[in-house]
């Protein structure tokens, strides 16, 4: 009997302790949704006096489409606001932000990091540590470089369709990567990896601002079917030693993404029957193989590319039911694409920055030699002189819903 009461008392004590544990610790690290400011995009610029200018694009949840009207009439406001803070470093800037924002800045949903071109040219090395070290910030955040623009201007622009500008940028990147292939959606983690790798340099997609940035801040510019301020994906920024040294635009950019195996689908135009850009070939499947070999003490790179796709359009009469014709077309496509790739490789070799990861390929084939011989002078001496052999094999899988174009009959036999 006595034992039972003692046990009971012990149980009560434990219960009491457990209860006080729950109540005294008091909701550690609890934050209500209404007390945090969702930073959806971060912009980094350099000021004249060498400080950082950090722009935080913060969502105003009540104004994002899809949210219900709250009692008390929230009105129709802007989906985001941008806070700009100066600071010697990123952490300081983000803390200083507290003076301007009524809520705690919350970085777990930051999807976009915009780097101003000025800052990019000065170097990225020091900024990524703060991002990687922060527990909220994700290394899966997409990164873009503002082409000929400041990051703050890109973040302050209001966009149509996607109400949240940062989302618009990310979705543009994704669709552009998917259907056009000139851009890559690069994440913070990828860049850090490329920065530390000696055999590969980072590339980051660029975004260009068309029109006056001041006008883009206001809602009025969206109240037209053709906004005069626009944001478009534009080229790839080439880095060397963490510094921006040049841009790849258009076909060069597409060739670069092809070598990087990031391309999903694209469109190749070829000249046919003397008419320029007359047949359009839609690439639906692509496979790239980059291999390094050492020949006579000199490294060589061979790139094998398999493309497969459909005919999207023709402006000249072609007999697509004729296998020989198809074969000829395929040969032509291969030539066209080989030229494109070679042009891009030459251009990058001029920039002396191995964004393709040829160094890494060489490292894989000859690890010892790489460390001894090539590693230290790769970008300066070896990469620009590199012999690159491009081999493309194209295959036309389908010709769309029909074989011959509707204007084929008229010119039948008139080859």
């Amino acid at each position: 009997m006595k034992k039972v009461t003692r046990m009971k008392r012990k149980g009560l004590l434990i219960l009491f302790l457990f209860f006080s544990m729950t109540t005294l610790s008091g909701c550690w690290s609890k934050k209500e949704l209404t007390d945090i400011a969702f930073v959806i995009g971060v912009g980094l610029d350099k000021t004249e006096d060498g400080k950082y200018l950090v722009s935080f694009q913060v969502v105003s949840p009540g104004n994002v489409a899809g949210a219900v009207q709250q009692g008390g009439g929230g009105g129709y406001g802007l989906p985001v606001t941008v806070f700009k803070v100066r600071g010697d470093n990123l952490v300081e800037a983000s803390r200083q932000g507290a003076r301007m924002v009524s809520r705690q800045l919350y970085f777990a949903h930051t999807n976009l990091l915009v780097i101003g071109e000025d800052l990019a040219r000065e170097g990225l090395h020091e900024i990524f540590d703060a991002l990687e070290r922060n527990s909220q910030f994700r290394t899966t955040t997409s990164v873009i470089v503002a082409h000929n623009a400041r990051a703050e201007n890109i973040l302050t622009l209001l966009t149509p369709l996607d109400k949240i500008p940062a989302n618009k940028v990310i979705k543009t990147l994704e669709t552009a990567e998917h259907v056009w292939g000139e851009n890559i959606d690069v994440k913070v983690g990828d860049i850090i990896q490329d920065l530390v790798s000696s055999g590969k340099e980072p590339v980051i997609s660029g975004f260009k601002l068309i029109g006056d940035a001041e006008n883009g801040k206001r809602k009025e510019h969206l109240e037209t079917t053709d906004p005069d301020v626009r944001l478009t994906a534009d080229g790839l920024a080439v880095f060397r030693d963490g510094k921006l040294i040049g841009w790849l635009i258009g076909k060069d950019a597409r060739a670069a993404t092809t070598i990087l195996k990031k391309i999903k689908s694209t469109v190749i135009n070829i000249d046919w029957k003397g008419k320029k850009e007359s047949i359009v070939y839609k690439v639906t499947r692509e496979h790239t193989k980059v291999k390094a070999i050492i020949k006579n003490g000199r490294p060589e790179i061979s790139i094998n590319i398999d493309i497969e796709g459909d005919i999207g359009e023709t402006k000249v009469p072609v007999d697509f039911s004729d296998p020989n014709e198809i074969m000829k077309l395929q040969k032509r496509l291969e030539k066209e694409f080989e030229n494109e790739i070679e042009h891009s490789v030459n251009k990058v070799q001029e920039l002396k920055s191995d964004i393709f990861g040829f160094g890494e390929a060489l490292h894989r084939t000859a690890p010892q030699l790489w460390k001894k011989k090539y590693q230290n002078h790769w970008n300066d001496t070896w990469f620009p002189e590199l012999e690159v052999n491009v081999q493309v094999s194209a295959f036309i899988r389908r010709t769309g819903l029909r074989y011959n174009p509707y204007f084929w009959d008229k010119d039948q036999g008139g080859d």
Partner: protein
Amino acid sequence: MPLWWKKHEKKMKEIQDKQNRNDQSGMAKCVPDEPLQDKLEDNLQTMKETTGKSSDIVYRFIKAGQNPEVSVAIVYTEGLVDHQTINECLIESLLNNHDWQTQISPQKAFALIERKVVSVGDVKTVNHWGDLFLSLMSGETIILIDGMRKAISLGTKGGDKRSIQEPSTQLSLRGPRDGFTESIRTNTAMVRRRIKNPNLWLDTMKIGKVTQTDVAIMYIKGIANEEIVQEVRKRLNRINIDSILESGYIEQLMEDQTFTPFPTIYHTERPDVVAANLLEGRVAIFVDGTPFVLIAPALFIQFFQAVEDYYARFDIATALRFLRVLIFFISLVAPAVYISATTFHQEMIPTLLVIAIAAQREAVPFPAFVEALIMEVTFEILREAGIRLPRAVGQALSVVGAIVIGQAAIQAGIVSPAMVIIVSITAIASLATPALSIAISARLIRFLLMFLAAGFGFYGVIIGVMIMIIHLCSLRSFGVPYMAPLAPFIPSNSGDTIFRIPTWAFKERPRLISQKNIVRQGKHQRPGPPDKEGIDTNEKGDKNET
């Protein structure tokens, strides 16, 4: 413990002991356990005194025989007896002229009436007042004869009963439509009709000192574990209480553990469920006056097994079983997960969703936890009111409830639409669980988990769920581990847990419940298309011994 408390406790105990003693002496006075007297008048006098001249007890005098006449009294309780039987089989034959009328004498009257006059099946002789009143109160008819120190008791139980109807709980689309009624005899008959086997044993006793309620244990000899049957009997015999008004009384007095939110005894309104459980080796406990029959031992997984699982094809049954386990978890953790995700782990919610939720919460003045608590409590109030509401007012409640919980609360800015969705999902989930008793435990634990979520986020929820699982594993139902056959894991029985294997694959009964006679069906039960060579499907196999 402080001293004053001890003193107080001692005092209370003394008072209680005194009361108990008084009670017992009172009982003895009520029903004298003495033999009957000689004279009819004295006996009737005693009966009238004991019953307080209750108006529903009918006394009928008859003079039987011509020379000499014998005074006979018929006593029965109005409403409990079958009038037709009494009129046709007793009074008629007593009054009509038969040859026995001439032979009657006070000495032979008793034997004559018992053997020749009464045309009722169940006839007993009663010697003591205690037995007499018990018979009288359970609807039997008493025949008292002048000069006899004993009485005849006739089984004329009858009166108005509810007819067999479809059960109001545990409905199923496919399967028998009959449900238990309040009459224990009807109920046991319904099970016996399903199991036509002499090994279906029924053991009846009376529990409740005042109510004298009929309680019956039913099991299949040879399949049921003898130890469990003994244990059930022991626990029933131990019960010493004034009244048993529902099987819930017995459930609470015989369960293994009181301080647990989980039921360790199953209850059902369906005779097919009882039959199936008896065949698995369980013991059923019938209580007179309630359609709910207890089944012991009960396992955790049993509360997720709906009857339809066994009547439907196995693939559908398996899918539904999965769904039910999911439902249980939803009803358990949905609000807790919502609270912890929105107040601690915002990074876990997809960006657009978190913004949408934040937008909804923008004008809500309460923290998510308070918001959830308000909605959950509101719903519980609605549910509680809905159960007990007179039908006529039900409509009004549902309209008001829908407005309060749905539209108005959002428009008033008290709760966010997302919260309403969570509460609704939880509410629907908790009603979709096949056994309501486990849904109620989920309901209790849900609030606990909500507190933990508000304090610690997912960490707290996980701790809470872990404690719950540990507790579940520690439970026993009549000595059988509650989580069997999952923990301890019994491979041969695990086919009927979170999935249900085809019926032809149910080779064994639950091992821990029916320990001796485990084999359930013969070999080669798997059906298939006709084979040219002809498979001997009726191979001897080991057939059921029972």
